[in-house]
């Protein structure tokens, strides 16, 4: 493949991969910014108490199966999840700079026939440098210096005292009041702006009536079709999608309509159906491997391979998915 074509195919590919870089150091940098669960650049990165980071959506999905950190296996739960705003900014900056770095690195790593102008024009995509993020929003929300979520100004002290757990002014006595507040028609479109720090609570669906769950779904403008299991699965996933979106910084968040679409896609994929229970765990306690070492070995073996990069192709016939075009959100400026 010609130089130009190869470069172009790398740039066109939605599948950014650390091995795109001829230099190992850049490959390491690239892979250090990817989530170990989905292997893609962190989206709404969050950390757990152990310090390991994942995409918010990835770890929230993982926790529905097991309450532990997938890397170190320490116990973990939703309450530990904290957005890591600095990491999100690093990832977004790297994504914006990646094509340029890749061009320079490829030109440097091998001899290139591209002139600098050509290289630049080849990468001048939608990636524009981020402007500074605002610290205080128009609605008087303040960027918490600890967890970097937006908290109402009058609630910031309480928020910090609570270890960044409380997200708003003193909690309502009734959860139901909370729900209606989140979902009420009046506030639904402005919910994200007026209270960007809001997370939906984890509910005990067993103790709830089918009617209550249906009510919640309808308030969130979601489908109310199906039996209690279906309603529960839908609302559970809605909570995951909603909360993981909230873990992204304001400029990276998607609107509720987009999240509703994602929920629909999720149901269409059939993930809503009850997953086969793996009974295998009880008797498969033997051979407990040190799996962190295992991952390291697997990773090392990759860097030790000597196959030419250009042979790294998608084999014909693989059902490669349409690249998902991520929305470019305008960065918010400070005056």
């Amino acid at each position, binding site marked *: 493949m010609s130089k130009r074509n190869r470069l172009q195919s790398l740039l066109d590919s939605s599948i950014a991969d650390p091995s795109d870089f001829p230099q190992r150091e850049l490959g390491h940098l690239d892979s250090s910014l990817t989530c170990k669960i989905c292997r893609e650049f962190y989206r709404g990165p969050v950390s757990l108490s152990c310090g390991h980071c994942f995409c918010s959506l990835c770890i929230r999905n993982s926790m529905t199966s097991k309450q532990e950190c997938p890397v170190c296996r320490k116990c973990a739960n939703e309450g530990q999840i904290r957005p890591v705003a600095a990491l999100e900014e690093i990832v977004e900056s790297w994504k914006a700079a990646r094509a340029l770095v890749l061009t320079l690195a490829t030109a440097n790593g091998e001899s290139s026939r591209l002139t600098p102008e050509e290289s630049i024009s080849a990468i001048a995509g939608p990636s524009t440098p981020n402007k500074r993020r605002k610290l205080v929003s128009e609605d008087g929300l303040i960027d918490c210096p600890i967890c970097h979520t937006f908290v109402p100004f009058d609630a910031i002290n309480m928020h910090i005292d609570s270890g960044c757990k409380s997200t708003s002014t003193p909690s309502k006595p009734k959860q139901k009041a909370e729900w209606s507040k989140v979902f009420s028609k009046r506030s639904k479109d402005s919910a994200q702006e007026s209270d960007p720090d809001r997370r939906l609570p984890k509910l005990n669906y067993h103790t709830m009536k089918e009617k209550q769950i249906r009510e919640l779904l309808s308030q969130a403008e979601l489908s109310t079709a199906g039996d209690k299991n279906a309603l529960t699965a839908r609302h559970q996933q809605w909570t995951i999608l909603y909360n993981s979106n909230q873990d992204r910084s304001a400029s990276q968040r998607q609107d509720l309509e987009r999240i509703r679409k994602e929920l629909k896609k999720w149901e269409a994929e059939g993930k809503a159906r009850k997953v086969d229970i793996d009974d295998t*765990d009880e008797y498969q306690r033997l051979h407990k491997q040190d799996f962190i070492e295992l991952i390291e070995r697997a990773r090392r073996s990759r860097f030790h391979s000597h196959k030419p990069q250009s042979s790294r192709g998608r084999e014909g016939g*693989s059902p490669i998915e349409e690249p998902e075009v991520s929305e470019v959100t305008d960065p918010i400026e400070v005056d």
Partner: protein
Amino acid sequence: MALAHTRRLNKELAEIHAGTPVGINLVNADTFEKWLFTIEVMGTSEYEAKKFLLMFRFDNTYPISAPAVQFVVDDTHKAPVHPHVYSNGHICASILGREGWSPVLTVIAVCITIQSMLASCKKKEPPLDNDRYVPRAPENPKKVSISLMVSPLLA
């Protein structure tokens, strides 16, 4: 979000095409439902100069839940004789169960585990309950009921 498991598998495939550990080779990954690898134990071992065919099956819960993994047993392939491998190809390994699996594990990590499980084998013998297990086991090892596979714990 859509088809997250195929995106993740695609990433793994790119790495696999870039190179696999010695003794582990991709045979077929034409779809994102089923992949086949050959596993060979390098150096001196009970399984010297033998190649086994390892099958992975994925559904859209991957990588949150483990893939279904087993040795292929047909006219031309046999499962290795091993205290944790049933003669129908089903494998008893902690990382394939709910407790031992982690979504940061990969197909290659599973291959390496199975390879080292074979490499460390001291005595080539089938699981104690092989004859009881095999006739009753479902085709897919992920659908095995808990009461069926007990002997490896006693072995």
